[in-house]
């Protein structure tokens, strides 16, 4: 069969006009110059020691053994994992909750959806500054706590080592939940209403309908949300940089902020590249599954 059909398809395959070839090659070369080539260099630099002036000096796995004994690296790695779990878990759960609440078409729904979605269009820097004012010692949060008699809970939220990390997560969540909600809203819209009717006829409760109809039907959206969240978590940089620069005493340090300050402020470019490789390894699983799904999609 294959042998028989091949000759019939071949003429079409060989008749790709040169212009079309250029159409594909030019963007590919642009991406190669700005992404693929730099990425290869990034992996190479991870095995060197480099100050950016003299030539990079190969150190084998030296940067990675340094990491093992680097307390800041361990803090940053722990915070990054905690960020993945907290930021990722909460934005998925709350985004789904918001989508379930706002899924029915009824009067006023557009306003509610827009309200939750609005922060998504703010830059993370603007988001950070919006919240920075609220976190100040005389800011809204402390004033509200005082007003409701919880004055003992007041903090200098961003300056306190025990709260800074969580104070940085909240603005990031405020911005991410609306995004996840939109993804889930589209997923919920795609569920056949007959499935719910059938479940109701069978006497399924609201919870059972959610558990046995909604969740299984959302499995493909869940996969998308998972990849979006992991990729966004590992990229989180702006909000931390704008609020705390990873401080105080590295308590809100993420791998992304540590990598940036190591590379561009301490000018330890080799070690910074090695930190970037760690971020890449953390993201790799998700990138691979995303690509496998895309591959199926494209076939």
């Amino acid at each position, binding site marked *: 069969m294959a042998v028989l059909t091949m000759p019939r398809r071949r003429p079409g395959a060989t008749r790709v006009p040169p212009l079309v070839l250029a159409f594909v090659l030019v963007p590919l070369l642009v*991406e190669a110059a700005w992404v693929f080539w730099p990425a290869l260099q990034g992996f190479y630099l991870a095995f060197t020691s480099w100050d950016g002036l003299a030539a990079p000096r190969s150190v084998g796995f030296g940067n990675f053994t340094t990491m093992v004994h680097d307390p800041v690296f361990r803090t940053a790695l722990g915070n990054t994992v905690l960020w993945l779990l907290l930021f990722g878990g909460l934005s998925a759960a709350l985004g789904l909750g918001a989508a379930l609440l706002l899924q029915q078409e009824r009067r006023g729904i557009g306003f509610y959806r827009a309200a939750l979605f609005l922060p998504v269009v703010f*830059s993370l820097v603007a988001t950070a500054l919006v919240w920075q004012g609220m976190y100040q010692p005389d800011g809204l949060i402390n004033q509200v706590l005082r007003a409701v008699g919880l004055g003992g809970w007041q903090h200098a939220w961003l300056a306190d080592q025990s709260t800074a990390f969580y104070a940085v997560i909240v603005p990031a969540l405020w911005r991410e939940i609306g995004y996840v909600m939109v*993804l889930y809203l589209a997923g919920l819209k795609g569920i056949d209403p007959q499935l719910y009717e059938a479940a109701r006829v069978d006497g399924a409760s609201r919870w059972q309908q959610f558990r046995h109809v909604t969740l299984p039907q959302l499995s493909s959206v869940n996969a998308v949300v998972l990849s979006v969240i992991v990729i966004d978590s590992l990229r989180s940089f702006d909000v931390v940089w704008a609020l705390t620069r990873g401080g105080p005493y590295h308590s809100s340090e993420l791998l992304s902020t540590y990598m940036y300050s190591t590379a561009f402020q301490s000018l330890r470019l080799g070690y910074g590249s090695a930190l970037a490789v760690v971020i890449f390894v953390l993201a790799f699983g998700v990138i691979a599954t995303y690509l496998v799904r895309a591959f199926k999609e494209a076939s």
Partner: protein
Amino acid sequence: MAATQAPTRTVGAPTGTRPPADGNARAVRARRARTAGFHLTAGLLSLLWLLPIALVLVTSTRSFDDIAAHGMGSWPRSFTLANFGQAWNEGGQGHAMVNSLIVTVPTVLLSLLLASMAAFGLSRYDLPLRRTLLLVMLSGNLLPPQILLIPVSKLSEVIGIYDQLDALIGVQVGFGVGFYVFVLHGFMRAIPAEIQEAAVIDGAGPWQIYSRIILPLARPALAALSALSFTWIFNDLLWAITVLRTDSKMPITASLIGLQGQYVSLWNVIAAGSVIAAAPTVAVFLRFQRHFVAGLNLGAVK
């Protein structure tokens, strides 16, 4: 519920007109209570979400003396628009806004032009290795940017555009194009082959097919991606501080961080700066809301 109600209604049809009416009234009341409950929950949630935005808007119009005397969280006792002028002029936001637009508009146009060309070739022609090429391009966009930061800043030094807006445009186009190709490919693939075949019979070359047929048909996807990529590129901080150094060349996000350092604890000026920095993307969102939401869902691999 429905199964048990149906028989009683048919059996008691002649005399049973009143009980259903009574039940209806109860059902209406229950529905009203549910509606009220919904609006209460959704309303409170929206209020909570909008509160930080309202607060920053109010703060941006208060005078420094008012904030100093009564605190950030107090009710406003003053109204002034001078903070916006201060952020715009002395704070450098005006200049930074121009930089942001000089970078964002060409980047959006160039990325979508390149991406639509590649997506056209990959989706409408039987190129060898087309699927592999598509995924290679997409994978570039999924890389964590951190792995690229140091090499990209060195690369822009080597080709002599470090600390120039061109470098920022270059890296933003290169990094974003893979994702746009992927989305546009999915969209263009769905255009029926007959349309293209008819054009070929009429003697149209690839350029005519691309510019007269496929591009106009891909308008919805292009609109969605334009709205989305505008906000992404406009809101970027990391690439900007990687390839730029001089303050006067920084886009609005980086300039906002500069403002934060320059006007420490002058919260009214910082708030005004945040409002200025957020205004363009909010405008794009409000104007193209539908495209925007469609774009986010286009990006999700279904």
